[in-house]
C-alpha cells in the first residue's frame, strides 16, 4: 500500500495559495469547498435515513390502520417483540450462515483459487473462464437471480442434468433453500474476489517466489508461506467487502425463495422487508433494519481498523 501522492502544500503554495493574506483556517475552508456537494448529498440521503431509522424503530408506524396517520412513540416495544419472536433468532442464525458460507468461505476461497489457477493456465482458457465468471458478476442482480432460480428450481437445469444421468433431483429451493441461495451467491460474487486477488498476486514480486522455488519449496508451501502472507491485506479488505455486500443481499433470495419455505431462508434483509413493507409494520421493520445497520457498522469499524494506515 503506497501512501497517497505526496502532499504538496506543506512545501509549496496551493492553487490560490497566498498564505500571508488569509489565515490557515480560511484557506483550509476554501480548499475544502469541493467536498461540499458530496457532504450535502451524503448527509441528506445516507445520514438522514440512518438518523430517522433510529427514531422510526421506536414507533408503531404502519402502512395501514390508525398508526398510518399518526405514529406513536412506543419505546422498546418493537425490540422486545422482536426478541420474543422465534423468527428473529432464526433469522440471525440464517444471516450468519449465509455470510459465513457464501462470503467468507465460498467467494473468498473460490476467488483465490480462481486467481491462482489462472496464473498457471493456458491463455485461451484463462480468457474464456474469466469472462464467464465475471459475466455472472456483471449481470444485473435481478437477471442473475432469475437465472439462479431457473437453475435450481424443481424443473430447472440442475435437475434436468441430474435426470439425464438417472438421478431424481430434490426440490432444491424447498428442501435445501439455504444451500441453493448460498451457492447462487457464490456464483454471483466469486468474480469480485477473483479480480481482487488476481491484482494482488500480480503485485507480489516474481523474484520472491522464484527464489523460493530455487530453494525447493513446493507450490503449496510457496502459496502458504509467501503468497498468502504477501497479500494478507488484500485478503482482509476483501473479506470485509464481500461480507458487507453479502449482508445486504436481498434480491437474490427474494426471487429464488422469497425467504421461504416458511422462514427457512429469511435472512435479516428478507425479514425486514416482510415485516416492514409486505406486512406494513414500518416501525417493526425499521427495528430489524436498525439491527442490520448496527451489524454493518460493526463490520465497518473492523474494516476501517484494517485500512487505518491508509487514511492517516
Amino acid at each position: 500500500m503506497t501512501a497517497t501522492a505526496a502532499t504538496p502544500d506543506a512545501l509549496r503554495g496551493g492553487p490560490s495559495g497566498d498564505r500571508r493574506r488569509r489565515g490557515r483556517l480560511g484557506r483550509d475552508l476554501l480548499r475544502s469547498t469541493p467536498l461540499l456537494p458530496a457532504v450535502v448529498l451524503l448527509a441528506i440521503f445516507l445520514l438522514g435515513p440512518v438518523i430517522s431509522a433510529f427514531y422510526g424503530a421506536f414507533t408503531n408506524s404502519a402502512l395501514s390502520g390508525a398508526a398510518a396517520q399518526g405514529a406513536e412513540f412506543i419505546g422498546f416495544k418493537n425490540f422486545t417483540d422482536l426478541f420474543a419472536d422465534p423468527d428473529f433468532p432464526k433469522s440471525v442464525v440464517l444471516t450468519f450462515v449465509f455470510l459465513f458460507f457464501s462470503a467468507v468461505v465460498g467467494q473468498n476461497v473460490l476467488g483465490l483459487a480462481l486467481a491462482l489457477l489462472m496464473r498457471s493456465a493456458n491463455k485461451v482458457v484463462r480468457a474464456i473462464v474469466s469472462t464467464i465468471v465475471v459475466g455472472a458478476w456483471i449481470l444485473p442482480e435481478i437477471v442473475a437471480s432469475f437465472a439462479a432460480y431457473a437453475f435450481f428450481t424443481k424443473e430447472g437445469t440442475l435437475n434436468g442434468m441430474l435426470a439425464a444421468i438417472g438421478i431424481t433431483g430434490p426440490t432444491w429451493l424447498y428442501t435445501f433453500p439455504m444451500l441453493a441461495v448460498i451457492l447462487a451467491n457464490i456464483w454471483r460474487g466469486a468474480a469480485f474476489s477473483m479480480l481482487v486477488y488476481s491484482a494482488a498476486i500480480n503485485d507480489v514480486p516474481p523474484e520472491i517466489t522464484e527464489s523460493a522455488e530455487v530453494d525447493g519449496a513446493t507450490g503449496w508451501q510457496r502459496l502458504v508461506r509467501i503468497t498468502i502472507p504477501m497479500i494478507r491485506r488484500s485478503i482482509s479488505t476483501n473479506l470485509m467487502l464481500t461480507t458487507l455486500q453479502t449482508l445486504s443481499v436481498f434480491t437474490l433470495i427474494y426471487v429464488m425463495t422469497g425467504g421461504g419455505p416458511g422462514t427457512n431462508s429469511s435472512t435479516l434483509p428478507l425479514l425486514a422487508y416482510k415485516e416492514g413493507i409486505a406486512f406494513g409494520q414500518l416501525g417493526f421493520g425499521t427495528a430489524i433494519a436498525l439491527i442490520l445497520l448496527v451489524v454493518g457498522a460493526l463490520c465497518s469499524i473492523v474494516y476501517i481498523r484494517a485500512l487505518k494506515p491508509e487514511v492517516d
Partner: protein
Amino acid sequence: MSLALTSPRGRGLRVVSNLVLVLIGVAFLLPMVWLVLASLDTRATLTAKLPEFTLDNFTQVLTPENAWIPLGNSLIISAGTALVTVVVAVLAAYPLSRYTLRVNRPFLYGVLFGTCLPITAMMVPVYGLFVALDLLNSFPGIILFLAATSLPMAIWMAKNFMDSVPISIEEAAWTDGASMLSTLTRVVVPLMRPGIGVVFIFVFIQAWGNFFVPFILVTDPTQMPAAVTIYNFFGAYGAVAYGQLAAFSLLYSVPVLALYVLVQRFSGGSFALAGAVKG
C-alpha cells in the same frame, strides 16, 4: 534452475489447472445458458434445452410498453446517477488527494463507513424521507439517492486515480495563479479521463442493475426502470412466459455487458475495477 518451470511437474500443474478452470467455467456458465436458450425457444421452460428456434420472444417483448420505455427509464436513472456521482466525486477527490486538511480524515472515515452501510436495511426510512420530500416517482430524487449511495466508493476510486496523476503538471498552473477549479477542470480532469470513465461506468452498471431502490420508490408504471418491470414477466401477465422473461433479461443485460467490455478497453486490463477498489 529455470528448467523447473518446464519440468514434468510444472506441465502437470498446467494441465490440472486448465482442467479445473474449465470445470468451474462450465459450472458458472450453466445458469446463464438457460437465459440464451430459453429466449430463443418457442416452448421455453425452466430447463436449459435445445430450443425450437424462434425470435418471437424478442419481437413480442420489443414493444414500447414492454421494453423501450422501461429501458429508457433505466438509461435516464443510470446515466443521471453516473453523471452526478462522477462530478461530485471528482470535486471531492481533489482536496482529498492534493491537500492535507483537517477535514480529510473524518471525511474519509465517514466515506469508508458509508461504503459499508447495507442499503437494503435503509429502504423503509428512505421511503419515509422520499414521502417527506415529495420525491416519489421523481427521477431527480432517485438519481440523487442512488448517487449518494454510490458516492463513497466513487470518491475512493476517484481519489486513487487522482493520486496517480503526477502533481508536477499542476505546479505550472498554480504559479500562473489559476484557481483551484480551473486547475482541476483544465489540468487534472483531462489527465485522468480514463479513470473518470471507469468510475462513470462502474456507477452506471450498479445503478442499471439496482432492483430494490426503484422497486420501493417508483409506483408509476410509466416511470419504472427495466429492473422492476422485468419482474412482471414473472407472473403478472398470466402464466409465466419463460421465453419472454429470458429474452427481456438478455436485452436488459446487454448494455452493461457492453459497458464492461468498454471499461476493459479503457483501463487496458480486466482488473481495473478491482484494482481501483482493492485495499
